């Protein structure tokens, strides 16, 4: 498989704007594409249901913590496994989820910070990524006894950014629905994705969360509102700046009038 990669590269025309990572001859097929950014929008969150009548002292809530695609697409193309570090009072608190959807369900009574470690496929990145999520079981504002039908949902939007991605990774994910790729530079010739001997890339099992049982509790994150507010505020600030500049000029001119 590696030979075929090498052959393909030696036969192709020299590509502009591709930097060689490390200059290691063994890995010249792992060239990085400069100026391109691959970003994966994710939502990291938890959903907690009160158990109602079935609640016991130490098992009051059923909760699920997860890392999902922001549009519920399959993250398995990028993420290899996710480790959820639970509170030490849980049995074997290091929970590994190595296939999408990356969710973990448990039963407990306490709120705590869950550390999440995300591991990527080798062609994407060899480093892991850490984030954390605060598990919330009880609603912020007390509004009567909790109903077992209405969960407490805490979600936060984020994006995993791969600056200067590897060629092989880029070519593999460039048309994947879970992945955003920034504008590619002109004249970039990506090699076609070879069969990456790792079958986990093309798992038959569904990894997306579109039909997840909890999916109707998922929030939709839209950048439109925030963007609108930001641009409006910027315009206002720019107007203020212009006004102040005008005044400055006037103040400078004033002493000469006398």
């Amino acid at each position, binding site marked *: 498989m590696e030979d075929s990669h090498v052959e393909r590269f030696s036969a192709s025309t020299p590509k502009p704007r591709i*930097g060689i990572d490390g200059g290691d001859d063994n890995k010249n097929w792992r060239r990085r594409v400069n100026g391109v950014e691959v970003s994966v929008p994710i939502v990291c969150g938890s959903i907690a249901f009160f158990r109602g009548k079935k609640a016991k002292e130490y098992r009051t809530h059923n909760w699920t913590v997860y890392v999902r695609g922001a549009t519920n697409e399959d993250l398995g193309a990028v993420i290899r496994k996710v480790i959820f570090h639970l509170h030490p009072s849980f049995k074997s608190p290091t929970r590994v989820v190595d296939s999408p959807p990356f969710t973990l369900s448990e039963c407990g009574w306490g709120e705590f910070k869950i550390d999440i470690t995300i591991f990527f496929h080798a062609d994407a990145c060899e480093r892991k990524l850490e984030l954390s999520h605060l598990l919330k079981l009880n609603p912020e504002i007390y509004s009567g006894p909790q109903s077992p039908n209405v969960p407490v949902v805490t979600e936060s939007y*984020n994006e995993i*950014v*791969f600056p200067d991605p590897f060629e092989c990774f880029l070519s593999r994910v460039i048309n994947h629905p879970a992945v955003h790729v920034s504008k590619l530079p002109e004249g970039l010739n990506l090699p076609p994705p070879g069969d990456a001997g790792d079958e986990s890339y093309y798992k038959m099992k569904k990894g997306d969360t579109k039909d997840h049982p909890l999916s109707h509790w998922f929030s939709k994150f839209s950048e439109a509102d925030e*963007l609108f507010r930001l641009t409006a505020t910027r315009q206002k600030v*720019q107007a203020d700046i212009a006004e102040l500049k005008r005044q400055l000029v006037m103040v*400078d001119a004033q002493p000469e009038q006398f």
Partner: protein
Amino acid sequence: MGGTDAKDILGLPKTPLSLTQEKKSRPQKESHRKPDGISREVYALTGGVAPLMPSIDVTQLKRPPPPDEKVAWQWLPVKSSARKDDLQLYHWVRVVNDVPPTGDYSFAKYNKSVDVLKYTDDEYENHLTDPVWTKEETDQLFELCERFDLRFTVIADRFPLSRTLEELKDRYYSVTRALLRARAQSPSELANHPLIKQPILVFFWRKHLSKYYFSISGHKQEPYDMTRDRERKRALSMVLSQSRHQEKKDAEILAEAKRITEMRLAARRAAEPDVPANENIGSVSPSSNSQLPATAVAPSTLTMADYASTLASLRMLHVYLRTYGLEQMVQAASSAVGLRTIKRVEQTLQDLGVNLKPKVPTKTVCDEHLELRKEILTLLNLQKQLQYKESEGSSHREGTYGAMPDTPKDRVFASEPFGFGGTFLLSPSFQNFMYYFTISNLQGVCLSVFTAERPIKKEPKRKGPGRQSDTPSPAHKRPRKLKASDL
């Protein structure tokens, strides 16, 4: 004597030798008793503390000599192995029971000398010839080296032909080295010779344990290098001859450089240690940092470098969260400004209804957020500038009243806000302390009383009667609450 007085006060017996009984009755004294055999004052001279290890057996000091020994002092001749001539010297010797002491002269062991090698003519012909040095010169050099124990300053002084000290040293060391190499039976005995040690040892270690050879080889010895020696001496004399003024300037420059590197380091704090500082910005995607505010009132090239280095460090991570990236960029932007300004920016953001951390941090949202922060910084800077300019401007206007010759060096704001929003200026150059009445066209008389530690003149904004300002400065339009934090 003071000692006896102290003992008097304490009501203790005065004889120093009877200390053993008094140990318990003197709790105020130092916890360690003074040893027998020497008086307390002498003991105190050595610090008053018992040594960790007894250096002298103190009991020996005042012991009477053993009765069976008969000691006499005799004027006897000395034989010293250190002396090569036949000079006969005499000294006093302590003779016990008519037996004079044996052994070499006790100081002969200090007569050390250097092992200067002697070469034969053959050896010279084969190994030691040099274009610049004649055999006679080399012979003379070696003779002097032997005579003066390699004290090159003396040798250089006495060398009959004019050669610099460094040349002499160079010749001596290279001759010795060549001689050693030529004479050596096997490389191993060479390896331990101090003059040869380093090159061989380094080579060996480098092959196998490249990381560790510095620590193991201990004292590093390098073959004598004439030019390096000259440079070293020149540098030393330069440092020695620096004037105090130059020293101060050097120290200032170093402190400044340190400050700048620390600022840069702070911007790259989260990155790996091998981040290249001069990444090509052009290769990064254009939208992220192309729109730096062109209207920045206080453009600092340092901020540009901060952004670039933060971006570079982010790229080095190979993967990061968008929120993390935004945090880093915000930190880079705030690294050049003080904490107060950062708080003001955040307050402004909140007032404008913008989340301090975006709820949906996509790329565009983060970029916009960053740009907004930068613009707010610019805005605040401009506001400050305007305030300053206004106060300056009003001081110029009041120049006709013969009070204010130059721009004020500092400003202090009165604690009460004034209706028309004028600023008060103080000039330290004036020694008089005066009250001024302010008359505004709309409001009544405001009297401001100002007290200060040093006599300062207070210069309020004045309007003459019947004179209307056509273009009232913006300060009049908006009554501004003046705070010390505005400075």
